[in-house]
């Protein structure tokens, strides 16, 4: 008990020191000295190294750097510096009232039919995060406290993601202008699978008996319109979402969904697929066989990945999972799925926010679950990269973040001991050189 009080005291002092620095530090020149630096790059670990930050960017990293006279020096002996964590699948809620059930009136043969444009809340609604997401509605403290500096924001259903970075100015998060990607929550249901198949332009040659368009065709039309209830051509978010039924849409306008799907089909951009069960993963791998270039970043929990391990194509699929020791389904046997995936040479990223229970309960020691995986045999460098550089590559933001290297943004996490001790706590999170969270 006394020990813990002592510890609390030390932290309080640390806290005060850092807070004073917080006030004082601006954009200028900053040197973090004496820490163990997990660069997540080729450099590996630098013991007792220095990170030099100028104007929010990393100017230099190394062991024996000459620190300029003007630099403010923070001594971090005993601490570890890591790149800010990049969460590749951060689920946010986008005001669902933005997608009410539309009603269409169709006049035909002298009679008028009022038809709903589709059942509400299907997973087939195309959502653009930038259109409906309000950063101020999100509670960011858990995020910063967990060391996440960058995240891909997604929501349920499917749509176009947005990249976010915790903002030092506003103590908030902002959507960045970085490239957005296509995400899709997949279930073993026709409506959900059709979104995938039509997007990948997989022809299922099943003639519908009634001679009416098959669900595939319908889905294809939805895609062409940018989704039912979606906004063709992506009108500004302020537009009335539930306006009167639009006039017949004669011209083929290319929707944002189309160009994203095109990029996926050509293998230029990966598709982020959140599979809700193991069966959905099998359906996904089936679909990929018919779309030879497409690549997928598969989001799934360990138990489902464990069951489908053998069906995952290393060349085409990368994996995003919540870090966690899993139980083999229907047993009490624990299993380290992350290690198994890595042994199979699958590219692996962790999403710390994916398992909301773990995310909320482990904010004081955010890497506890990862530490358990490392203790159970997962390579620690792989674990570091799965939190930082790999997700950054997946999101295509690896030029700016993901490692501690010269020229990258100074998005850093400072931990008070070895990150995988299990008890390591975050003392400081920096975004572009400025603190966004100080313990």
């Amino acid at each position: 008990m006394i020990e813990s009080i002592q510890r609390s005291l030390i932290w309080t002092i640390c806290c005060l020191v850092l807070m004073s620095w917080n006030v004082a530090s601006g954009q200028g020149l900053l040197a973090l000295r004496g820490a163990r630096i997990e660069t997540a790059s080729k450099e590996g670990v630098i013991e007792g190294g220095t990170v030099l930050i100028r104007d929010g960017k990393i100017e230099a990293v190394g062991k024996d750097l000459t620190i300029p006279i003007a630099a403010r020096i923070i001594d971090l002996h005993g601490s570890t510096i890591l790149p800010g964590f990049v969460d590749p699948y951060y689920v946010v809620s986008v005001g669902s009232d933005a997608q009410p059930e539309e009603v269409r009136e169709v006049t035909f043969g002298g009679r008028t039919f009022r038809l709903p444009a589709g059942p509400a809340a299907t997973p087939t609604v195309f959502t653009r995060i930038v259109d409906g997401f309000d950063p101020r509605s999100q509670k960011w403290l858990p995020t910063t406290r967990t060391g996440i500096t960058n995240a891909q924001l997604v929501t349920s259903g499917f749509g176009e993601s947005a990249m976010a970075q915790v903002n030092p100015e506003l103590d908030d998060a902002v959507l960045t202008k970085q490239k957005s990607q296509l995400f899709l929550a997949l279930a073993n249901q026709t409506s959900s699978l059709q979104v995938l198949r039509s997007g990948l332009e997989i022809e299922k040659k099943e003639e519908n008996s009634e001679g009416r368009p098959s669900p595939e065709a319908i889905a294809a039309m939805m895609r062409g319109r940018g989704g039912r209830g979606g906004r063709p051509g992506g009108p500004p978010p302020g537009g009335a979402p539930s306006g009167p039924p639009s006039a017949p849409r004669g011209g083929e306008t290319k929707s944002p969904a189309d160009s994203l799907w095109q990029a996926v089909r050509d293998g230029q951009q990966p598709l982020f697929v959140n599979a809700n069960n193991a069966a959905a993963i099998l359906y996904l791998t089936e679909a990929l066989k018919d779309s030879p270039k497409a690549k997928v970043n598969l989001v799934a929990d360990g138990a489902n990945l464990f069951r489908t391990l053998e069906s995952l194509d290393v060349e085409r699929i990368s994996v995003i999972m919540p870090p966690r020791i899993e139980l083999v389904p229907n047993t009490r046997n624990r299993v380290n799925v992350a290690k198994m995936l890595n042994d199979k040479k699958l590219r692996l990223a962790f999403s710390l926010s994916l398992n909301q229970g773990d995310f909320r309960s482990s904010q004081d020691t955010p890497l506890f679950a990862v530490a358990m995986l490392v203790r159970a045999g997962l390579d620690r460098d792989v674990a570091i990269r799965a939190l930082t550089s790999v997700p950054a590559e997946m999101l295509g933001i690896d030029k700016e973040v993901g490692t501690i290297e010269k020229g990258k943004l100074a998005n850093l996490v400072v931990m008070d001991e070895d990150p995988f001790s299990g008890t390591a706590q975050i003392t400081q999170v920096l975004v572009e050189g400025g603190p966004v969270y100080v313990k």
Partner: protein
Amino acid sequence: MNRSYTGKWVGRALLWCSLLIAPAVNADEKPKMAVRVGKIITSAGDPIINGTILISNGKIEAIGTQDEIAIPEGYQIIDHPDRFAMPGLIDAHSHVGGSGDLNEMVYQTNPELRNWDQIIPHNDDLKVAIAGGVTTICYIPGSGTNMGGWGTLMKTGPGKPADVIMRAPGVLKIAQSGNPERSGGEVGSGRMGMNYVIRQQLLEGRLYVQQWDAWERGELQTKPELNLRLEYFKPLFHREIPVVVHTQAYQVVQSTLRIVHDEMNLRLVIDHGTFDSFKLTDEIIKRDIPVMAGPRGFWYEPEDGQVKGIVSEYDKRGLVSLGVNTDAPVIPQEELFFQASMAVRYGWTEAKAIRGMTIEAAKALMIDDRVGSLEVGKDADILITTGSIIDPRNYVTQVFIDGASVYDIRTDRRRF
């Protein structure tokens, strides 16, 4: 002068019986029979190959190999050279011995209720039950209240109520949890309340019996007041009849052991003992309490996704006084043997299963002086089967109850 209650009670019972039975069935009228079969399963030692059973006066007169036993003159010979004979099966938990109104639910405990006035001998359910080999049932009130009333031990064969009743009161029915709960806000909506009313009622009964015992021993000056509501507690607290306790799940069985056995020193039968109750086997063995498990036959352990046989889990932990029940009509009465089949499928053994449905059940219900095994002097409740009764492919071809053939597929339509 013998003032013991037992004497009086037995005396009265005998009087009733003689009064009722004597004119109806003259014991001498029962034919004397010799049953010869390929194999006799006795539940009292090793099976007898090519055996003979002599029946007279409704009882087993002799049993042994065909070499040992000479058939006296005047005995009707029933020959089944390729069949098995075995004791009739006993179900320790049944509700189909009479009308189906099993629960009076105004009071939480009902020691004033008894069910032998509503017996319907040889009713449609029991006719089929016989075809499934069931010859004795413990017919009890339901579990709608914590103390449902007094049950009856009865045969399934034809006759007047007095012919089929073996003992009344046969047992007391207590239901601990998982049915007798009352609606929220009342005492007895939870386990604390239910245990309270059970304990309270038993304490009242015990005090009553203790007062009468003291009076009978001459230790009291004034005669205790007669309370008809509590009269049947006398044989109970004299340990002449058992309590059958509707109790299931680890925690509930613990309280059964504590209240009914440890505090009240009663004879009891654990009459469901399902879910994870088997984890208490060592405590049950320590107290020498029989378990007649069922009607649930397995427990699905969510932690490891496995199905576990309840009986075999008790068996694995060394419990011998072990059987199955049907809780008929939850499981049809005739499928008592199939409850054992499933228990064997999950890991019990056939030999134990047959004992469990015969002699172990008889011991549990304290009627092993009359039924449960094929031994000289016991009731001639005998099944003739095409093979081991545990295998559903085999069936019962003839049934004797009290020495009379009550079912014979050569003359009756096959019922099961």
